[in-house]
């Protein structure tokens, strides 16, 4: 695809992620059931839910790591299931465990990721400096990844997800294992990214969602049981924590009620 085409598509399609009726089961076990997601450019979506709710599976489907049994998936107007390579070029993904080659240096690793995403040599140089500065990795370029602390490894994980300036950034629990200061930094980074790109964020931390997300969805037993905007929540002066515990406490009758 030519560069101009990509720019055109970015301008025309302000809807960056459009997933309809995603379903997935592992054998008889249903993990995700009828999930719909629509995300515009410049929006941050928070995906909440207890453990095993199907958040990670949903994100894996959105990034092409897991094929849905039923459903359609469009990333920036490109069908992810039909043209996976073109669609994946728009996505930056940080899985639960950051995918890092421990024996590479930070620079080597980020350069490899940029090349994988088909960036040109002169672009890479600029992007590398930019992304290191954004993620607080300046001066860490020559360090081997396995000598970095957990927090810094997480930052490298985020850096690899955004180095190629994707339109859609998908972060699976990005602040796990970070200290409060780092968490705050990452949150402000997500906010900053959210202004430019679309961000999907899965997390357990409710305050994080309240701080950065425009859209909030709660998943339970593979379904989306609550969907609202942050503005809507604030208007009705409802607390996310109450809603969350109400909906996801083991009460089955509440859990199956779709909203």
């Amino acid at each position, binding site marked *: 695809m030519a560069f101009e085409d990509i720019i055109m598509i970015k301008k025309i399609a302000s809807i960056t992620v459009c997933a309809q009726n995603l379903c997935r089961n592992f054998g008889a076990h249903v993990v995700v059931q009828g999930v719909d997601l629509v995300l515009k450019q410049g929006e941050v979506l928070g995906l909440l839910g207890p453990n095993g709710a199907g958040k990670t599976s949903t994100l894996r489907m959105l990034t*092409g790591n897991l094929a849905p049994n039923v459903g359609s998936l469009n990333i920036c107007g490109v069908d992810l299931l039909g043209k996976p390579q073109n669609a994946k070029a728009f996505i930056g*993904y940080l899985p639960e465990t950051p995918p890092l080659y421990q024996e*590479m240096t930070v620079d080597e690793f980020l350069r490899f990721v940029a090349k*994988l995403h088909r960036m040109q040599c002169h672009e890479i140089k600029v992007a590398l400096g930019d992304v290191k500065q954004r993620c607080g990795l300046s001066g860490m370029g020559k360090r081997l990844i396995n000598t970095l602390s957990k927090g810094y490894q997480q930052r490298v994980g985020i850096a690899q997800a955004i180095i190629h300036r994707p339109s859609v950034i998908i972060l699976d629990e990005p602040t796990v294992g970070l200290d409060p200061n780092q968490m705050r930094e990452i949150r402000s980074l997500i906010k900053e990214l959210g202004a430019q790109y679309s961000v999907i964020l899965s997390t357990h931390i409710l305050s994080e969602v309240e701080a950065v997300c425009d859209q909030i969805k709660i998943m339970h037993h593979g379904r989306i049981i609550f969907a609202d905007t942050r503005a809507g929540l604030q208007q009705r002066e409802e607390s996310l924590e109450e809603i969350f515990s109400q909906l996801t406490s083991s009460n089955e009758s509440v859990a199956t009620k779709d909203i």
Partner: protein
Amino acid sequence: MITTIVEKELKQLFTAPFAWILLALMQLVLAWVFLGHLDAFLEIQSQLMQITNPPGVTEIVVVPVFAMAAIVLLMVTPLLTMRLIAEERRNHTMVLLVSAPVSITDIVLGKFLGLMIFFVMMITLLAGLSFSLIAGGTLDFGLLMSNILGLLLVVACFVSLGLYISSLTAHPTIAAIGTLGLLLGLWVVDIVASDMDSFARNFSLLKHYDYFNRGIIDSFSIVYFVLFIVTFLILTIRCLDGERLRG
């Protein structure tokens, strides 16, 4: 895209001491065998002069060294192929490759070619060893080329099989043991195949290699090797593709 993966594979291979140690050990063992055969050749050289049409230095020194090299590589390949995919899976880095706009075919071919470049280096060293004989006589270049080609093809077979086994598991050790087991099995087939009429003869990698070793380039052998390589590469691609569907 393939070049990016090849580059990464080679970088990973050579930043660890393992590849260097292996190269050194291989060279040591093969040089030892080489010198042994050279010694024997020098001893019987005067007697060889008396027969008409005597076997040259290539037949007596180079051929057995290449035959030995195939056996040594059979032992060594599983150690190198085990980490190709199994380790990526264990370190959760496979996700990175799958999420990038790269096809599974590119990933598999990149890994295959990366390791093949390493083996080409190893075989170049071996060829260099053989070329050193020019200093004291003439070489049968046709026979040498046939040996080099045969060794390349047989190693490519080992690598493609190892790559496939590595794609089946998340434990490098299991991949190594599995590959070694299968390759040894193929070696056993070779022993069964020493009976001339045996059907198993057609399936033995080392038997086909033996033709190259003796300087016979049989098109059936080439086709067998190429089919073997392509089959296991396709199986690997299918296995990794299926992962997305199975989860």
